[in-house]
């Protein structure tokens, strides 16, 4: 569903992502981990078409994100690290705009908007202007809009920022259900416990390179540290790569 084929992205002379090759199949929840400045957000921005790779290709459901951006976006839902909404639209109006942009038929859109508002407990303030929402409410609305068209691929950049524990649980349950139904989730996070709990595979990036790709067990095998949790393994891996680079 998602393919990074020898992708490199440069910012001037700095290489943000270096020769990234990665393939994520249908129905997998993939968590991309790494310290600040590792290249996670750049990777996600290339995946959703905000940035173009300097070299290589990114494909979503077989559609190249540069050559066929509209078809690629049609199959993608995106939850950015900072919610982007229209302040002068209500939550309901915003969802209708998204439904219209994805060409959803009216009845189908009505059903889906009701479904997502219920899922994310948005009914109470659905007719208030988005400018009056708290960060958590905005984030829930963005989740609802990203899932409205039942995307094949859901891209999440630090998805739990601003969410209270109840909303976090709600999102986790929902993601598990959707993944079980066949949706592919690509998630960047610093919350290692969440990655450990939910991810089928993890990728650990550092300084633009993918240092590890696999399951948690494979990571333990690679590090020869059977008893450690993901946090300990992550710190071990990133600190060793840091000392190597010195």
């Amino acid at each position, binding site marked *: 569903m998602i393919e990074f084929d020898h992708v490199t992205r*440069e*910012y*001037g*002379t*700095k290489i943000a992502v270096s020769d990234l090759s990665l393939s994520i199949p249908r129905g997998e929840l993939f968590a991309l981990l790494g310290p600040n400045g590792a290249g996670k957000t750049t990777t996600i*921005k290339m995946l*959703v*078409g*905000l*940035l*173009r790779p300097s070299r290589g290709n990114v494909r979503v459901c077989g559609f190249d994100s*540069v050559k066929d*951006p*509209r*078809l690629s*976006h*049609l199959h*993608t839902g*995106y939850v*950015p690290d*900072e919610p*982007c*909404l*229209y302040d*002068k*639209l209500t939550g*309901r*109006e915003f969802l*209708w*705009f*998204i439904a*219209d*942009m*994805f*060409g*959803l*038929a*009216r*009845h*189908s859109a009505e059903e889906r908007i009701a479904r997502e508002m219920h899922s994310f407990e948005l009914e109470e303030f659905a007719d208030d*202007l988005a400018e009056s929402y708290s960060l958590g409410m905005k984030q829930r609305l963005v989740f609802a809009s990203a899932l409205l*068209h*039942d995307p094949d691929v859901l891209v999440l950049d630090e998805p739990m920022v601003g969410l209270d524990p109840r909303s976090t649980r709600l999102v986790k349950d929902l993601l598990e259900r959707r993944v079980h139904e066949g949706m592919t989730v690509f998630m960047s996070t610093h919350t290692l416990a969440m990655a450990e709990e939910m991810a089928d595979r993890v990728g650990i990036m550092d300084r633009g390179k993918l240092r590890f790709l696999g399951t948690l067990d494979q990571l333990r095998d690679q590090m020869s540290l059977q008893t450690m949790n993901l946090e300990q393994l992550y710190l071990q891996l990133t600190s060793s790569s840091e000392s190597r680079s010195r």
Partner: protein
Amino acid sequence: MNPLVSSRDAVFDPVRLLNAEQESRTFLRLRIRMALTTLHTMLHTARLRLTLVVILSCFFWGALYGLFSEAFTFLDSLRTDIVSLLLNTFFSSLMVMLMFSSGIILYSSLYCSREARLLVTLPARAEMIVSHMFQEAIWFSSWGFMLLGSPMLVAYGVVTGSPWTYYAMLPPFMLSFVFIPSMLGNIACLMLVAWLPKIRLHAVSTIFVLACAGGLWLGWSTMSATTSDRLSSAWFEEMFGRLSITEQRILPSWWLSTGLLEVARPAQTQSELFASLGEAAKFLALLVANGLFLQLIAGWTASHLYRLGYSQLACEQPLRGRRRPMGWFDQFISMSGTATGRPIRLLLVKDLRLFRRDVTQWSQFAIFFGLLALYFANVRSFSYNATYSSMIGFLNVAVIGLILSTFTTRFIYPMISLEGRRFWILGLLPVNRDQIVWSKFIFSSVGSLVPCTLLVLLSDLTLGIPPMFIAIHETCCVILCFGLSGIAVGLGARMPDLRESSPSKIAAGFGGTLSLVISALFIMLVVIIAAVPSHLFTATQASQSPLVVRGVLGWAGSGTGIVCSMVVVVAIGLVATLWPMILGLKAFRTLEP
């Protein structure tokens, strides 16, 4: 029923790509819904501001109409055929300005806004996203043209006795004209960002500086090289002869002015009316056709370059190791003075740094005060007697005050609100809350004193005003600087908006509008009280008869009257400075963030 509901029902795939027409309708519904919500919000939460905007716009329109009526009547009396040149010069200048302004607005909305960040990730056509943003850019860049151009063109029609067809053709002519430079700005913006992302700012700055330099050179050479008496028929002929470059047939400004002049021609018979209408329609068709052609090019350019440019722009490395050319100045301010005043000085240095690094603030400041300096430097091009010079000097003080009041409202008033949002920083520092408010006041008053007093001095020296009146003007200016700062800082602390992060939105609220209105009243009060005795005094001196005015007016026009008026002005200044500050300090001490 939801207002964004489409009337169309699709019956096939759950998700699908929209065709261009459907996408266009979706964006249109979005635009209409947001416009209605904004209007509804303004009607319910910013009535004062809305009413003021409408009243002031009507006043401004009426004043311009009167001014242009007088000007066209005067030009008509000269019996010279210079209206065409006048219109060509006006429209061609506007064309350049519209191109720049729409390009800059589009740059900000297409590449820097959160809305663009959302739209780029949706399955929308790039050209539709650009077209959606273009609607906003054309509105923001051309409303000034409409407000300035419509009274001028209506006045021209009334003075020349134009038929009704002229007034009917005005809106389509103006709309089709603004479309062309705005589209050119749109295309230039897309190309510049996609192809020259790293040097886009340098390229725009260079072009802008060259355009300004060219305009200034043209204006200077035109104004300074004329040999005839100013404002005479021959002077106009000579001056506009130098501006014949604006009459090139290839310029849309020429199509606009020629079309309008055709349809404005008074018709004696029905056939004459239709003949002029037909000629004008050809020029309108030319404007529309070119506008549509440019739209095609813009659409093609957007489809190929917008997403590329959006990505290219992110190629730049963030600035690191920023040089600090003014570091010594900051150091000097923070280290000089007593230890007790150090917190205020540190807050001042912080605000000074923020001001220097906020291009929006200092560029607007530089542009407005630069334009004023240019005007003051040339104000002597026309000859006045002593009475008029003194009056013009006071008017210049009022203009400086009015411009300063817009800055204090826009930039100083929101400072306390924005500081309130950072209470977690300041609240933990050993800084008294009063010191925060006073630091803003000092920042505003001292920062405005230097440019404003220099501008007044420039104006008075150019006008050849005697030292005594220079002293009066400077005193008024100093009082305005302190008073306007007191009003903005005091009201800002009295009515802070701690939830809003955008300074422009804070300034646009009730408190900001109130601050602007009180500032305007304060300026009028100070200038009128100081100007009337001075005017009477100079009028008496000019007529060389002390009996030119008697009674109260005679006393007001004496030296004692001037001194008394200045005492009153100082008293008003103290009240305007201290009263809002006391209110603000009191409120800010008990503010709960």
